[in-house]
């Protein structure tokens, strides 16, 4: 199974030898090598790399390299041993097996060219870009390989017909409600005083069933979140109370974590949609706008509480992240790189958690559940089976 790669390092990402090379521009990463090593690598081209390895390997090896150094004509062999020598020996260079890449998240300052983008398109790898402060900037969404005109027509049909649209949108809202409610119950059963919050949430949950327009549905959804965010104060061990959700930009640690986590999830959902014939711009609960992949927002709504929010509770309560993880100079809350890495590690770990699926009879990861959600939507659109949002049962 191909994995997701998160690149925090700055440097150059390039296609070479039909795979990916990440070449660091800065030597920010502490080098485990001797200084001599580093010096050689600075001026590195193939031949010098050979020399560099000579120092670490057997005398026989060194001898080989010496002979090669003498005869310039043996260019071909030179390249061979270069390959054996393992360029990853240098701290600035990392080779990523292209067949192991499902998607890439770029956080660092990366230089790349169209040759690489063509390569990504060929391998159908979406790339998500985050800016200096860790805010989502956009995605490189390669040419669709799984296209279905028939499904697109159905998708639009279900959008334009208000009754059909409301049906799908309501199911998304129900899915979101289920997981919000589940999180609160989880902490109530662990002795947090959340009785009022659970009641209030349940009331709003009933609103979902009553809503007769998308606006009413979105309103119910918004109030649900408001109740839920207020409960954060009870769930989290905070010094300063969490007042309300503030975005663009976030104003405190919790808001920064929610924003960052949601944007990671949003990108991860988009990558899953990319693997299905669904068109990511036609959405049902959110209004399909221009310039954004709003279907990813719809589907992410179901998974936010179970992936992102649970992750935040863990990060804060286990004190993996604290107030000193915010960049101090900026006027809003932005996470330091260290904190971002911690979040990403935790996030990826959660997406890889597996649960035995009752109907499929096999273990499915959370990321797999996102994909299944897309497939269920496809089945609904094609009239095979009515869509039922995921309701975590475990």
């Amino acid at each position, binding site marked *: *199974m191909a*994995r*997701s*790669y*998160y*690149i*925090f*390092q700055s440097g150059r990402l390039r296609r070479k*030898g*039909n*795979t990916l090379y*990440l070449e660091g521009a800065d030597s920010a990463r502490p080098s*485990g090598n001797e200084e001599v090593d580093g010096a050689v690598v600075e001026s590195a081209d193939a031949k010098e790399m050979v020399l560099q390895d000579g120092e670490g*390997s057997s005398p026989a090896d060194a001898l*080989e390299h010496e002979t090669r150094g003498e005869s310039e004509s043996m260019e071909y*062999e030179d*390249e*061979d*041993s*270069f*390959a*054996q*020598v*393992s360029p*990853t*020996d240098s701290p600035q260079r*990392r*080779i*990523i*097996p*292209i*067949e*192991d890449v499902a998607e890439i998240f770029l956080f660092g300052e990366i230089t790349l060219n169209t040759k690489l983008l063509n390569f990504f398109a060929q391998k159908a790898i979406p790339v998500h870009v985050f800016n200096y402060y860790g805010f989502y900037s956009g995605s490189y969404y390669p040419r669709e390989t799984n296209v279905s005109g028939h499904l697109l027509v159905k998708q639009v049909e279900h959008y334009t017909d208000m009754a059909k649209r409301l049906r799908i949108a309501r199911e998304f809202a129900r899915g979101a409600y289920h997981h919000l409610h589940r999180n609160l119950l989880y902490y109530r059963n662990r002795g947090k005083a959340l009785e009022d919050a659970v009641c209030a949430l349940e009331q709003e949950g009933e609103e979902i069933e009553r809503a007769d327009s998308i606006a009413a549905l979105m309103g119910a959804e918004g109030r649900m979140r408001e109740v839920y965010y207020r409960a954060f104060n009870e769930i989290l061990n905070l010094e300063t109370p969490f007042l309300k959700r503030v975005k663009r930009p976030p104003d405190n640690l919790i808001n920064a974590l929610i924003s960052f986590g949601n944007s990671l999830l949003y990108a991860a959902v988009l990558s899953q949609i990319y693997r299905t014939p669904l068109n990511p711009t036609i959405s049902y609960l959110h209004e399909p706008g221009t310039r954004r992949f709003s279907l990813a927002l719809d589907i992410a709504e179901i998974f936010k509480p179970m992936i992102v929010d649970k992750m935040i509770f863990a990060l804060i309560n286990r004190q993996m992240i604290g107030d000193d993880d915010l960049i101090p100079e900026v006027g809003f809350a932005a996470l330091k790189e260290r904190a971002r*890495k911690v979040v*990403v*590690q935790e996030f*990826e770990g959660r997406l890889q958690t597996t649960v035995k699926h009752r109907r499929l009879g096999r273990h499915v990861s959370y990321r797999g559940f996102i994909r299944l959600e897309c497939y269920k939507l496809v089945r609904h659109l094609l009239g095979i089976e009515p869509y039922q949002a995921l309701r975590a049962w475990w």
Partner: protein
Amino acid sequence: MYVVLVYDVEQERVGKVCQFLRRYLHWVQNSAFEGELSEAQLERVKLGLKGLIDEERDSIYLYILRDARWMRKEVIGRIKGDTESVI
């Protein structure tokens, strides 16, 4: 499945083999690669290698684990190539 692959290939072919493997697996040290592969990818790797090596003289060993979870990996000394996906 998780695959650990080690090869002993004559010098004239070693570069080709190494370059080919880099597309599928993580380089961990000289002549050793490891990583997660699907059944289909494993077949592709094996087929590709058969085309590159001289089966009379070279040898490639594959250690195949059903799941990386059952693997215990220990390293003594320097970690030369890591397989992390957060870089």
